[in-house]
């Protein structure tokens, strides 16, 4: 079993704390079937391997992984730190985009800590160690984290693996963006707010940030639907997505809608992990979305 990244530094009063949904993603991404799928999807030839004639086909290009809404960063850190174990290659790039700046800060630290631990606890190593590519150890590379609205700032058709643990709880309405996220550059109070942003938040502001991490509006699907609609524009030709759904999201209908998307299709959508099984209802599930 691969170790779960430490998130003890994360301020849980304003960043979503890893919970059953996060751990289901970790379990699913490290299941034998997904490891086999991913290494077939992104084949790599270790450079240190003695190459007998005929030469093996060249490696596929370095995969780019994007997690939208990484929160504490536990999933992105898992993917980055255990890149070789999960993808059978360590030349893996990861990127996290969260609407909450505190989550961006937390994720960067969670990934850095997990990478250092995976590389054998050498504190001077900030990613990308020297272990040979035949070793099962080997971390990937965090490009960085950025504050943003879903994948709106990501260049089209670049993402090879998209991971999204969405705000999936059905709520009467979507939370409005907290004022501190507004980013209106012509606001006179900008400087004052900039100061405030990095220092303290009120209880109300913290609650508003947390609401962004769970409140999904109608059927808990309003944010998720935006991401699904963006998949053809975001994913590369070989790209795939892991999407977490809960039972109230009506996952069978969601999968049906994805399979019916015309743009960039045909699309496949299958449940590849589930937890909280009760009388045939999976409370949470991970859907893999891809094209053959």
């Amino acid at each position, binding site marked *: 079993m691969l170790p779960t990244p430490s998130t003890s530094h994360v301020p849980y009063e304003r960043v979503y704390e890893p919970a059953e949904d996060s751990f289901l993603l970790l379990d699913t991404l490290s299941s034998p079937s997904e490891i086999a799928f991913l290494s077939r999807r992104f084949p790599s030839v270790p450079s240190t391997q003695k190459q007998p004639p005929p030469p093996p086909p060249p490696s596929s*290009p*370095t995969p780019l992984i994007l997690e939208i809404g990484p929160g504490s960063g536990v999933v992105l850190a898992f993917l980055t730190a255990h890149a070789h174990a999960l993808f059978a290659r360590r030349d893996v790039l990861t990127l996290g985009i969260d609407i909450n700046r505190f989550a961006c800060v937390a994720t960067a630290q969670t990934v850095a800590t997990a990478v250092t631990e995976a590389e054998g606890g050498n504190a001077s190593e900030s*990613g990308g160690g020297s272990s040979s590519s035949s070793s099962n150890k080997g971390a990937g590379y965090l490009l*960085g984290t950025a504050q943003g609205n879903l994948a709106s700032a990501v260049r089209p058709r670049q993402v090879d693996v998209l991971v999204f643990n969405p705000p999936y709880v059905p709520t009467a309405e979507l939370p409005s963006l907290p004022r501190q996220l507004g980013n209106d550059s*012509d606001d006179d109070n900008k400087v004052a707010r900039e100061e405030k942003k990095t220092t303290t938040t009120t209880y109300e502001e913290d609650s508003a940030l947390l609401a962004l991490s769970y409140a999904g509006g109608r059927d808990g699907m309003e944010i998720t639907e935006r991401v699904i609609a963006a998949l053809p524009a975001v994913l590369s030709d070989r790209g795939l997505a892991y999407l977490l759904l809960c039972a109230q999201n009506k996952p069978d209908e969601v999968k049906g809608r994805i399979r019916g998307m015309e743009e960039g299709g045909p699309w496949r959508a299958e449940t590849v992990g589930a937890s909280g099984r009760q009388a045939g209802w999976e409370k949470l599930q991970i859907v893999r979305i891809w094209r053959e």
Partner: protein
Amino acid sequence: MKVLTLNFLTCAVKSCKSSSDSFPLHPKDAELVSDDVNLNPQLLVNLLPRIDWNALRTTSTELGFPQLPEQPPSAEELEADEKMLKDLHTLLMETQINEGKLVCGHCGHEYAVREGIANFLLPSHLV
């Protein structure tokens, strides 16, 4: 964020997506820091086919790095060229943009970078 990230980002304004001027974003008043990362030649070779080389040349020049050749090296050329490997490694994997702005060449919007984290949230009138 690593300089390489700029090869994967674009302006968040919807109407900029169709313009080639929105990519790459242009660093402005950038404060760079350098991380120690071990050189991984295989990573750089596997990155080559997915890098937009022209955009990378622009970014490299704008950040004050030596001009990159007009054409990207082939995988074989790169593997055999220790200096090129080292230069690309330094630029792409070790150099981080810590403070400054990223400017869209189409709409002119400036995205702030603070403590290594860029903010792509748009003011309400641009959403």
